[in-house]
């Protein structure tokens, strides 16, 4: 309808960009410093300075921090040298962390904490031109330093309910101060009325948007640029199928989505750990066990061919491991003499006693008497793309490869997927039961689809329950996830992390080890808090994932 106006506008826009923005852009790109490569370093720095757990949150908004996160922009290009921009990152991190530690907003008070900062800021100021340092890092706005907020990925909300087909996905900027409204799913979308809003909204800040028809075409790529200028003040949660995905981390204000008792519970109840009260909430989550039977034989065939090289390599690795051994002393047979036993036998013989004939050191196979349960995250977050591959595809193909070789070396193993939709609906899909033959179970992986959220705790507890019924000496859970516990009834952040940790501790006490894997590098920030060191791996690509799963076997300290 407005096509020619739009074209004229785009024409002017392009001209403006070429004449005005581009030179400015060129100057900026020479000195630009990005957050991504130094994120981990700044994250560690923030935690040391604050002397308590602090997260790093990426957002272009000029805010210093809230009560538990330091806000950092995706890039700094304002200062006139790259070194100065780098320094801006460091100073903002340090000051943000200090503000969190001291709960004080005042620049002067912060500088008193670490006097060395005064000199650094003074050195930096000449590179900033007219811009005030404190304004730049958002130290003016401190009203929010003490109030708790909730974090969730917008993608989790946009991705609710159904799987998208043919969608575009772009990574958006992080947003703070977002309010979430529940969408009215039942209401049919009526034809749009043209609404004239230009008189009311004088500035972009004042313009708070209006409802758009939600079943738009996939035009996301065309509008990507505009979207990145967008300030997300209100978002809507709806069950509708998205045509386009705009992924962005947001910090939500005053979100409360605890469940009432409207939906029927059923299923197997499990407790959940509330770290604030330091106690379990009894029968809080309900596992809905399902057994998957649909299979995709063609997928299995294709995957087997596609990854033949990986499977062969894994087989070699595990075979080497399976023959690797542990020493057991005083055995009736064995390749080595046990010197203590020999001497004892000598003594016995000379003193006229019957010598013990168990004189040897036996080497026992390491992968002996193991029951393993592979637990995979099939929540919507696995529907996203890392390194040009859908995480879910990567996970199930990896699982396929690992299953192929595990079948030969481990007596008992099961495979299950999990996802959740609030605590009442924690789905646990058994893909391979312990007694199922792998040959029939493997094709079921092909039918696996992404669904719901990531409530790791109940899934772990159920997996432990299944393992305790196994008689094997060594029990282990392999968890494949993107590393962020999350469900939309407040299972997130610290709460989720502590619950997962508790579940693992309980398992360890009952002799069940948990080893976790992730493909996403971002997991470096959550994983260490949930899993004991040496009990998790974060890998850059699928091939490494399969290899590190086999490596995890090597590190199992088996008792046999």
């Amino acid at each position, binding site marked *: 309808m407005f096509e020619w106006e739009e074209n004229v506008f785009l024409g002017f826009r392009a001209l403006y960009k070429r004449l005005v923005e581009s030179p400015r852009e060129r100057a900026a790109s020479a000195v630009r410093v990005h957050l991504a490569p130094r994120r981990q*370093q*700044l994250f560690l*720095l923030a935690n040391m300075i604050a002397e*308590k757990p602090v997260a790093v949150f990426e957002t272009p908004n000029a805010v210093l921090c809230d009560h538990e996160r330091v806000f950092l922009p995706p890039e700094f290009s304002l200062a006139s040298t790259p070194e100065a921009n780098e320094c801006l990152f460091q100073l903002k991190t340090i000051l943000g962390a200090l503000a969190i530690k001291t709960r004080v907003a005042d620049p002067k008070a912060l500088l008193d904490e670490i006097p060395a900062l005064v000199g650094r800021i003074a050195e930096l100021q000449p590179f900033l031109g007219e811009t005030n340092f404190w304004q730049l890092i958002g130290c003016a706005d401190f009203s929010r330093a003490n109030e708790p907020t909730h974090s969730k990925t917008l993608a989790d909300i946009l991705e609710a309910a159904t799987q998208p087909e043919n969608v575009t996905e772009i990574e958006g900027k992080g947003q703070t101060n977002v309010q979430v409204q529940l969408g009215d799913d039942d209401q049919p979308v009526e034809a749009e009325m043209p609404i004239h809003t230009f008189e009311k909204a004088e500035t972009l800040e004042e313009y708070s948007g209006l409802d758009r028809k939600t079943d738009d075409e996939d035009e996301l790529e065309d509008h990507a640029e505009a979207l990145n200028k967008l300030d997300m003040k209100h978002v809507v949660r709806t069950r509708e199928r998205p045509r386009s995905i705009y992924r962005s981390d947001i910090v939500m204000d005053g979100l409360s989505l605890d469940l009432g008792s409207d939906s029927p519970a059923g299923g197997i109840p499990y407790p959940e750990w509330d770290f604030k009260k330091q106690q379990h909430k009894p029968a809080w989550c309900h596992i809905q066990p399902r057994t998957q039977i649909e299979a995709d034989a063609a997928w299995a065939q294709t995957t087997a061919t596609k990854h033949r090289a990986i499977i062969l390599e894994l087989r070699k690795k595990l075979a080497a491991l399976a023959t690797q051994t542990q020493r057991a002393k005083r055995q009736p047979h064995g390749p080595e003499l046990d010197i203590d036993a020999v*001497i004892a036998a000598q003594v016995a013989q000379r003193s006229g006693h019957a010598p013990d004939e168990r004189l040897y050191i036996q080497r026992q196979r390491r992968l002996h008497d193991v029951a393993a349960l592979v637990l995979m995250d099939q929540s919507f977050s696995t529907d996203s793309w890392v390194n040009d591959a859908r995480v879910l595809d990567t996970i199930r193909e990896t699982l396929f490869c690992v299953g192929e070789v595990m079948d030969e070396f481990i007596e008992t193993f099961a495979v299950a997927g999990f996802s959740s939709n609030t605590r009442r609906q924690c789905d646990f899909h058994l893909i391979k039961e312990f007694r199922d033959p792998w040959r029939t179970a493997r094709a079921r992986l092909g039918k696996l689809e992404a669904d719901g959220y990531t409530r790791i705790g109940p899934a772990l507890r159920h997996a432990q329950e299944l393992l305790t019924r196994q008689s094997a000496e060594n029990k282990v859970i392999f968890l494949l996830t993107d590393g962020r516990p999350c469900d939309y009834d407040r299972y997130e952040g610290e709460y989720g992390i502590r619950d997962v940790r508790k579940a693992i501790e309980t398992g360890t006490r009952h002799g069940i*080890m948990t080893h976790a894997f992730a493909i996403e590098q971002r997991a470096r920030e959550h994983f260490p808090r949930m899993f*004991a060191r*040496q009990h998790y791996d974060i890998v850059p690509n699928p091939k490494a994932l399969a290899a590190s799963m086999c490596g995890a076997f090597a590190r199992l300290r088996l008792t046999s």
Partner: protein
Amino acid sequence: MSDRPVFYLETGRESELFAKAWEARLPLMLKGPTGCGKTRFVEYMAAKLGRQLITVSCNEDTTATDLLGRHLLIGGETQWTDGPVTRAVREGAILYLDEVAEARADAIVVIHSLTDHRRELFLDRTGETLHAPPEFMLVISYNPGYQRSMRELKPSTRQRFIGLGFGYPSTDIETRIVTGETEVDEKQARALVSIATKVRSLTELSLLESVSTRLLVDAAKLIRAGLPPRYAATVAIAEPLTDDPDALAAIKQVIELTL
């Protein structure tokens, strides 16, 4: 044993407890992270009580035989040789089993009879039963913590000991320890301790091994020997802790801000 008196700075009532436990003939378990002063404390107390100290550092190959003793074949004759535990019982020494959780289960079980009212040690190889003299005391140490959940002490073992938890000392005391050990000036000692406090907050997130008081003392010694403070702190604190470049860079930042 050196002639120099053992330097130890009390952080609570631990030396009183140790002395009372020794008098009451109770076995003692020291818990705490590595390098926080457990071994030093035992050395200090042994010197203070005037008892000989026999220390065994346990590892996963430590067996009952290693602890109790073994027969050796000498010129066709077998000859019994006492292990450290047996020797300590015979001599009424203070026996310190360091990192006892690392030892194999059968090795840990042999000390059980020493820990209760019997206070005796049975040597199955020689058929001998030794009764511990009143001066004998058994002290074990272990390093609890989220990271090492695989090597827990069994409840049946740990409930035979009274427990003394060691943490890192408070800022003031740790500063005094650093100055006391190295005679570095107080301002620098305080800065070193402040670096340690910050790094230890990463340990709580299990992102990093912890900085021990021992490493701080090492850093102070290097400073005292004339190295530039930042460099000394980097080689003594940052580098021993981690190989991760991000973590190293972050710790160096903290060092630069503090020293």
